[in-house]
């Protein structure tokens, strides 16, 4: 017998006789119409951003090259980079920057460190007690900053205030540089603590219980579990809070500074936002304020980018 082995190929193949006809492509107009809906849905949000954020930003960039006193009747006077040069030579700017950095760092104690401790402690509380506890901590968030400031002003009064009576030692909180700075930071922290605790609690809830269970069975102590498992897994949340603090602290302290100290005593509480406001709306030096605003915008942008990068590096996706 003679023969040959042939490879078996039993897979279905498109038959060669049928030439595939290119599926009719819809007309460009039709394709555009199909692609449009998602962009239409985005339009209101993009529109608002453009009108309320990007247009003023562009206007500020433009304004920073002019000298103008905000009066519509006065013409804008082009000064080139003069505003920026004057700005960088001004010691007030560096003082305000330094103060802002220090206050932000101090504020991190209330928006990151303390909330983490509180959330870790309260996470063990179950049932109704937990809700009551959370509500108590969250309540200050609901107090309007200016109203809060007014009440704090009474409480911090050196002759009849509750705070000085409590500590039994008269301190002029609002009119001495150090105490004034502390007061601003503590009152802002008191406002933010509840919100931060809520965010950290949500972050804790997002960590799978199995990790802590596994760590317990691996005979790790509570402190080891917290340090080696919970905190690293919580770190993206903490970086987010730090980012919020850095970006918002200036704005959040503003109503307090304005109500309590007006930047004083001796500009001890004049942070960059208060300084901006003074230049723009007290001295009416719009171009100068705009150039300072842009400088801060860039500086905060750099810090924020760094923190976002950090957050990305710390996020561990399981699976």
């Amino acid at each position: 017998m003679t023969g040959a082995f042939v490879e078996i190929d039993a897979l279905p193949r498109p038959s060669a006789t049928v030439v595939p006809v290119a599926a009719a492509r819809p007309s460009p107009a039709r394709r555009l119409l199909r692609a449009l809906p998602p962009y239409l849905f985005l339009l209101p949000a993009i529109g608002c951003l453009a009108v309320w954020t990007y247009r003023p930003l562009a206007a500020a960039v433009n304004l920073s090259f002019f000298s103008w006193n905000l009066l519509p009747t006065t013409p804008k006077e082009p000064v080139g980079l003069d505003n920026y040069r004057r700005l960088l030579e001004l010691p007030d700017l560096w003082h305000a920057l330094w103060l802002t950095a220090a206050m932000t760092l101090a504020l991190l104690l209330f928006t990151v460190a303390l909330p983490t401790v509180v959330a870790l402690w309260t996470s063990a509380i179950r049932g109704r007690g937990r809700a009551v506890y959370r509500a108590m901590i969250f309540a200050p968030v609901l107090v309007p900053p200016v109203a809060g400031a007014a009440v704090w002003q009474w409480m911090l009064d050196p002759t009849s205030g509750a705070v000085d009576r409590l500590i039994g030692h008269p301190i002029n909180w609002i009119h001495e540089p150090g105490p004034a700075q502390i007061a601003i930071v503590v009152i802002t922290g008191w406002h933010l603590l509840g919100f931060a605790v809520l965010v950290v609690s949500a972050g804790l809830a997002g960590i799978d219980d199995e990790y802590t269970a596994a760590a317990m069975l691996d005979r790790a102590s509570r402190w080891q579990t917290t340090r080696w498992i919970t905190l690293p897994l919580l770190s993206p949340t903490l970086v987010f809070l730090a980012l919020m603090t850095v970006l918002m602290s200036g704005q959040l302290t503003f109503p307090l500074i304005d109500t309590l100290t007006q930047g004083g005593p001796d500009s001890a509480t004049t942070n960059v936002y208060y300084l901006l406001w003074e230049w723009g709306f007290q001295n009416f030096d719009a171009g100068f304020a705009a150039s300072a605003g842009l400088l801060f915008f860039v500086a905060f942008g750099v810090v924020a980018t760094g923190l976002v990068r950090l957050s990305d590096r710390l996020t561990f996706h399981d699976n």
Partner: protein
Amino acid sequence: MGRIELDGLTKRYGDVVAVDGVSLDIADGEFLVLLGPSGCGKSTLLRLVAGLITPSGGRVLLDGRDITHAPPARRDLAMVFQSYALYPHLTVARNIGFPLRAARTPRAEVRRRVEEVAALLELGPLLDRRPRELSGGQRQRVAVGRAIIRDPRAFLMDEPLSNLDAKLRQATRAQFRMLHETLGSTVLYVTHDQVEALSLATRIAMLDDGRLEQLGTPTEVYDTPASVFVAGFLGSPPMNLLPARVECHDGRVRVLADDVEVDLWPGEDVEARDVILGIRPEHLHLMAAEGPAGPGGMPRLRGVVRAVENLGAEESAQCAVGGALVHFRGARPLGLAAGQPVALTTARDHIHLFDRHSGRRLAWRPLADRPLADRQSADHEPAAALHDGVTTHQRSST
């Protein structure tokens, strides 16, 4: 040492009883598998032993010491989680070394032990990776590595193979068996997979609805299931269970149902009763020729083939017998087609009987010398009512 005793362990969630008075004595070095369907309470039972859940009642003893209320870290047990629970931010080496690091072991010692374990589990090249960069099988091995790096009294495993594909599962089963032989430690293993249970266990604890249904070696559990539940859970397809009736006719004890006739042995004066007749699919054969169904005849089931399934090496046929569906499997090809009438038979040794109401297994006990009144009362203790010979404990095959 690693003897675990459970004494009436109970867990209630409101009105739901997840674990219902389970008592078990797991000897040192034993590989005990908790087997049951989802929701039978097996994982809850494991977590009670681990200390991750507090029991509503009962006790857990480890080497005679009451650990019912000891925190997990004080129990000296290691656990492999179903999700593996690998710490996502730590490398493989740090994951495996975690228990030692928690015990403040010197760094050099930790590194040495991690390398040992990694070599044993073939994880050497992966030590610097993070869990998300590992495949399912690799993650599973890291979880095992983290458990075996210290020398716990017992290992708890919660469905460790359920996230692996079939081929990997088989390889890992062999690895578990090897590990158990090398380490010689006690293992308490939860699974819903009967193949895992039968192939790994030294003993199987079958759980249903939070209660212990049967405790025995894989052979005992498979060959002499203690209840309809166990019979219907094990085997693929599981045991055929048909409602039937034991009767006495013309001096013979017989089991009868629609299209089913099983002649057991000579007997008189046996109380008629409702039973469930059980026959494993692999124990059924085609009847060569229609033999006589009279005294001494082979058990006979008549039916019509409904469908034939190709299982690879074997074929499984579903046959309508009376009102029930009977599975029967044998070497391929069975030579059957849908619609074909068939007559099936089996060896008398392979007949299982269960009480219709309680679902418990029936065994035959001769009662010749006892008065009738006793026999009637014995009716309420089904386990003692029939001859062990019906359902021999030793099977010739397998």
